[in-house]
């Protein structure tokens, strides 16, 4: 509980109410992209379709992203305990796993383009790149936030008692993870199965 919380009507810090509202909105954002993808799943024109997907490869990078939620939780609890050194370590570990995921995505995208599936090849490819690309952008923003957080604790601009900051970034990070599970299932697993 942050210091201001007891003065609010809901007993929650403003920032927590705000981030929940924002994430609710983000669900609809990805929902609309996922619906568009489902609509265009089979509209591949002459280009390649889902057969390009390398499920084992993506499963590994998805797994890494999933695990990053664990380190994020550890980072938060370290911050709550006031162990800033350990907190920073877990934050950097989370960011690193995010970067691995993004690296995987970049690799995947370049492979797809080489194999003839570019952004404008077909409604399928556009919908695919738009959906996964926006997710990647969200992860990237998350990585930037994590790196900034780590830097700011080092500079002592984020203090041990400000664990709400870690908690908020954590909420965002978990959200991005959960959305990825949905995307991975809908985009990669269901068509393959």
């Amino acid at each position: 509980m942050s210091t201001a919380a007891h003065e609010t009507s809901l007993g929650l810090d403003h920032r927590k109410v705000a981030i929940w509202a924002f994430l609710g909105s983000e669900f609809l954002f990805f929902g609309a992209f996922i619906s568009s993808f489902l609509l265009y799943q089979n509209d591949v024109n002459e280009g390649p379709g889902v057969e390009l997907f390398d499920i084992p490869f993506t499963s590994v990078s998805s797994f890494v992203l999933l695990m990053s939620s664990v380190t994020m939780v550890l980072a938060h609890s370290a911050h709550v305990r006031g162990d800033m050194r350990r907190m920073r370590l877990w934050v950097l570990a989370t960011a690193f796993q995010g970067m691995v995921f993004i690296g995987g995505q970049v690799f995947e995208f370049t492979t797809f383009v080489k194999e003839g599936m570019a952004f404008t090849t077909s409604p399928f490819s556009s919908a695919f790149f738009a959906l996964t690309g926006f997710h990647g952008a969200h992860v990237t923003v998350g990585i930037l936030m994590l790196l900034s957080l780590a830097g700011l604790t080092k500079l002592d601009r984020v203090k041990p008692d400000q664990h709400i900051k870690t908690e908020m970034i954590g909420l965002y990070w978990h959200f991005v993870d959960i959305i990825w599970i949905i995307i991975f299932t809908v985009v990669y697993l269901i068509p393959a199965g």
Partner: protein
Amino acid sequence: MASSSVAPSGSVFRRPLATKGWGSWLTTVDHKKIGKMYGFTAFAFFLIGGLEAVFIRLQLAEADASVLSAEVYNQFFTMHGITMIFLVVMPMAAAFFNFLIPLQIGARDVAFPRLNAFSYWAFLFGGLFLYSSFIFGGAPNGGWFGYAPLSTSTSGLNMAYYGVGLQILGISSLAASVNFITTILNMRAPGLTMMRLPVFIWMSLVVNFLLLFAMPVIAVALFQLTFDKVFFTSFFQAATGGDPVLWQHLFWLFGHPEVYILILPAMGMVSEILPVFSRKPLFGYAAVVFAGAAIGFMGWGVWAHHMFAVGLGPVANSAFALSTMFIAVPTGIKIFNWVFTMWGGKIRFTTPMLFAIGFVAMFTIGGLSGVMHAIVPHDAQQTDTYFVVAHFHYVLFGGALFGIMGGMYFWWPKLFGKMLDERLGKIHFWLWFVGFNLAFGPMHIAGLLGQPRRTYVYGEELGSSVERWNQVSTLGSLIIVVSVVVFIWNAWKTYRSDEIAPHDPWDARTLEWLTPTPVPEHNFDVIPTVTHRDEFWHRKYAEDDAGRAVPVPAGASEDHAAEHGEHEEHIHMPDPSYWPLVLSAGLPFIGYGVIYKSIIWAVIGLVLLLTGVYGWQLEPVAEGDE
């Protein structure tokens, strides 16, 4: 930037401190100032959008006139619609949200004052961005609904401006909605339970939830449209496998909730005005609140009534016809509650009251013709005719703008500390009312006679009576222009006068009237404790044995002023900041970068954006860590 307000140390990380003068407007985080900025800006856009409307009407006064070319006509009606919806009615509502929400819930400010400033600047830049298209080769010309494939396949960047411009405005709305939802849920004065909230606050809450969930949907559609235009993807291009109907689904999934986003704030204002001037509490408070919330929910299930003409099939059409008729029920409940509020009341016909009554009457007409659209065979006849134009102007102008005008007259004394002139106000109202009905009433008839919408000439074949009705319409629109001039004159006269308004000129009911006029920066010296719905009224009146309201001498309206001013202890408010301005200034640059595929512009934009974000994070935090 705001040099007068930068502290002498010269460090850019130093927060600006001035609360007066020009610099203060650029850096303010005070919700009351931001509210006024929203109001002024939206009014300026109203004049521009009105001017476009007048040109449209001049063109249509004759069957085959040539005041505007076809292309310019397309740009004008599109920009007129976009302007009125996104740059006038929505920001006007935001002006009232900003000014009123903290005051009515007994708070010192919104939850995130700097985010609030960001919302305003993003709105301003989004509007300027859209209008800059006139300079750079042509404004959006595919209708405010931007139907694909017309919007995506035409050459020219007109509709790219639409895609990016609305995106920026959407970011502004989304930020505002998060802010207001948090403020309302989390910053209510002690004792102000949800069922004691003023109706205006309830409607604001519903609207902001609608924004929260509608904006991401249109954001996705706009991204796809922009990709189609700039990178030649085929989201909406049938020739390469895309589906233009997807645009319509996404657009109206946003667009129908949007019409409630436009009307609910006005409903909230009217629900505050009618009781005050009927000297009665609102009839059926709970019903009005639940009806408002029900409209908010049901608004998501009716979008395809805008798409009967697409050919979704009889099952879908019937389902959406039914759901649409159901949504008329809560709307009807509200109308009855307003009428019963006035029933048997001691009515004072002040200017705000006239606008509120006008709202109820005109909105009812608009609602009824709306139910007619829900009947699918009916709609097949009316769609794309002037009947629809008549319908939505009765709702948006007869509804939203009448309500907003009533709100302006009602809250003007709190906003600016002066009373608008009642005599000029009544002249304004009657000209506005008559002009409005002359302008839009005949459109029903012209529409049923077959005059198509969105065409710059309708041709002699439709007959001379259609032309005659159009002339009446044009005359009506000119009368509206006169009424707006009267309003501006009134505002100017009030501005020049130095008569200060009393704290509670209307003998009102809600907390904002507890504050002194003009409202001090910290709103309340002591946060009020609430024990009743219509708290302020109960502080002024008690019931005698016969159940009549009698004034309580100690709490009588003028006395509370003494409560203020005595507490000289310093209440710390958040310091001004220029980062919201820097951050939002990045948005249009990124927008130009995307449209013109210019890396340089996009990079400038990103640098501004990131500078804003980091400056915001790093600036010395005011008390309480925002």
